[in-house]
């Protein structure tokens, strides 16, 4: 348990600090923006307490909102992601079921499963984020375009960081 805790706390720091220091001003194809901090939410254990999860998502989102001076859009999007995550996990339940202590990474879950899981969560997070930023129906289509391009960027970066830093640690 103690090791798990260190693992997730270090994931929090790696992803949030990467967001603040490296990806805070990086653009991709003009529209795209990388929200790599979402990677931390994706890696939380599959049986993580729902209440605690929501509170952590709220806190993380608030840090980002204060940094980007963006009101509450990161907070709203993060809380939404964390709320739908348990449902999605039980929906995508692998054939053999989850094992205790299993980590949600590309290595352990396989590429197909992980891409499905991560892209759904990342896209819904980004869609909420950009729709709230636009705050009007006339820009909704544009918000979807921004969300899609950014989601690809975030997904690639999250998987890269995960393979580089979080794949060798054995449970």
């Amino acid at each position, binding site marked *: 348990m103690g090791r798990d805790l260190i693992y997730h706390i270090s994931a929090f720091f790696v992803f949030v600090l990467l967001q603040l220091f490296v990806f805070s001003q990086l653009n991709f194809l003009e529209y795209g923006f990388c929200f790599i901090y979402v990677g931390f939410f994706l890696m939380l254990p599959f049986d993580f307490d*729902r209440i605690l999860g929501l509170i952590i998502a709220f806190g993380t989102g608030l840090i980002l909102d204060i940094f980007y*001076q963006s009101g509450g859009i990161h907070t709203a999007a993060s*809380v939404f992601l964390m709320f739908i995550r348990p449902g999605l996990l039980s929906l995508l339940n692998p054939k053999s079921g989850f094992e205790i202590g299993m980590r949600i990474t590309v290595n352990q879950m396989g590429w197909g499963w992980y891409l499905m899981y991560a892209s759904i969560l990342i896209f819904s997070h980004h869609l909420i984020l950009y729709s709230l*930023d636009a*705050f009007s129906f006339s820009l909704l289509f544009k918000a979807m375009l921004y969300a899609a391009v950014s989601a690809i960027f975030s997904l690639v970066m999250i998987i890269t960081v995960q393979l580089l830093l979080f794949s060798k640690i054995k449970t």
Partner: protein
Amino acid sequence: MERLFHLIYRYRAFILFLFLEYLSFVLIKNRTIYQQTKIVKAGIEISGRIKSSTSNVSEYLNLKEHNKELQVENAKLRELLAQRANSPNQSPRGDRPPSVLQQYYYVPAEVINNSTNRFNNYLTLNKGAIHGIKPNMAVIGSKGIIGKVESVSSNYSTVVSVLHTGYYVASKITPSGIQATLKWDAESSEKSRLLYVPRHLKINPGDTVKTSGFNAVFPPEVDIGVISGVELSEDATFYDLRVKLFTNFNSIKHVYLVGNRLREEKLELEQELSNE
């Protein structure tokens, strides 16, 4: 009663979810109020430090271009100065107070963070409260308007860019003097829109758009852009006007913060009027 508690317990995650989403919406809606709080100011200070350390690198890459821009601006100012010195009918200055003679004062600043690809864009500048910066000061670049100061920490300030879908700028079309309102439509970082120009007026593409100075943020006659597209549909009350902005928002580095010494007085007077 026990059943109620059971119900609440069963749906506790959903209830908490709704509550937290409600809180975030309150934060979004009251953005301007909560931007003045201490914690957000501390956030601006910290993010300002981080951003200024990363922007040092990119600064060297664009040094040549920025130098050129500043030189062009200097030439323009020298020309204006020469014109003024030569003009015979200088208005007598008399004993007007300095706040009237020099209503606007300028503070140079550097952009350390800037976005153009969001729906509501902001900039961060390396000047703050200790340099005399206050919320609602205007921000202009060498080519034209940029935005207005939103919040200020001790060393940094954040600026609402003209590229913000909720920000309106009182402007006018020159030389005709037609009043209009500039508002961004998130189409492109080079273009914006002019609203509320009634259809009976004649609009020429290529006319310059400048600030009117009516909203006490920008001084009058600051360049905004040129009219690049004029459309008028059959049943519309107003024109559909596009403005090509002079400022290239993707490469701004050196800006001026403009303070208005008479702003308080103007607002007070207008407030009195609306109270009656």
